């Protein structure tokens, strides 16, 4: 999916479980969470085209209902939780506790992995986002992320 997003010239930042794993979290995640640049109309079209090609459909709702995946739907529903031929993907125009794409980008770092280069939300902002989301599953992840931050700070200090 990451390769597809990059090849499709989508401007995005990886957030959520994959970003946590890039920072050292041992939790296994199967979905990809991204924050996309919603102010750039071209980016919306590129992302929507890619999602349509992947046959993206909202997760957790009755299947088989008509669903138009294009930039207009993305404008109407800027946060989408989707399942697709490539796997589950959550697309968001903003991240709770961090802000819209521009703020998320400011708090991101470049990672080269799985054969591609992309940006991931940094660890302090990931912790902020988890706290702001406030769901039990986010709070369950906090002790590990806070320990990761403490240990990585200690490691960089030595």
């Amino acid at each position, binding site marked *: 999916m990451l390769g597809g997003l990059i090849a499709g010239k989508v401007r995005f930042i990886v957030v959520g479980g994959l970003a946590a794993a890039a920072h050292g979290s041992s939790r296994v995640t199967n979905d990809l969470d991204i924050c996309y640049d919603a102010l750039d109309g071209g980016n919306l079209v590129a992302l929507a085209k890619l999602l349509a090609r992947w046959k993206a459909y909202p997760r957790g709702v009755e299947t088989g209902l008509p*669903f138009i995946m294009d930039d207009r739907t993305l404008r109407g529903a800027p946060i989408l939780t989707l399942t697709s031929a490539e796997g589950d993907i959550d697309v968001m125009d903003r991240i709770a506790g961090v802000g819209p794409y521009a703020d998320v980008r400011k708090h991101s770092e470049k990672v080269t992995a799985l054969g591609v280069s992309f940006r991931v939300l940094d660890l302090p902002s990931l912790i902020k986002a988890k706290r702001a989301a406030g769901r039990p599953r986010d709070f369950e992840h906090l002790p590990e992320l806070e320990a990761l931050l403490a240990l990585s700070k200690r490691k960089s200090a030595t």
Partner: protein
Amino acid sequence: MTARQFAVASAADIKWIMNSAALLRRRLRYNDSEARWWGFVRLLTEAIGLPLKTAAVAAASLVRITQSSMPVTVSADPSHSASIVVDLARYESIFLGNLSRARVHETPKRKGRPPRLAAGQQALSSAYRYGVDLGLIQSALARTPAQRLAMLEANSLFLREMRRKAK
């Protein structure tokens, strides 16, 4: 469905829904069909500027149409010089997206005051008490992000294969 999930599904502010329900004397029931109806009402009042009661009547006629690939005329003058047309297929796509977000993403928040932000030694001791394997974290930190993500991919593939075989 919680009030917050209901508001997300109908793409409306929960306070606006509550106030409008009081004005319309409509009992609030947090379910999918009501969210769809409130979504129409919000669209017609906030985006188009119809009065609340007119929007409620129009929304009632719209929810009766189960599927339509053609735009539906909600209101028009006798000569059809001016009309309000709703693209139902578009509305349904956005509603499905919002409903999915409400169910998957906006699950109920944790009750009570959030735990304090832990840092430094305190973060390590509270993580240890919580049952986090600090040795595992230290070994993860010794790897590069590329190695960590390659490991995640391998673990994820393994779990997927286990699930597939269990079926």
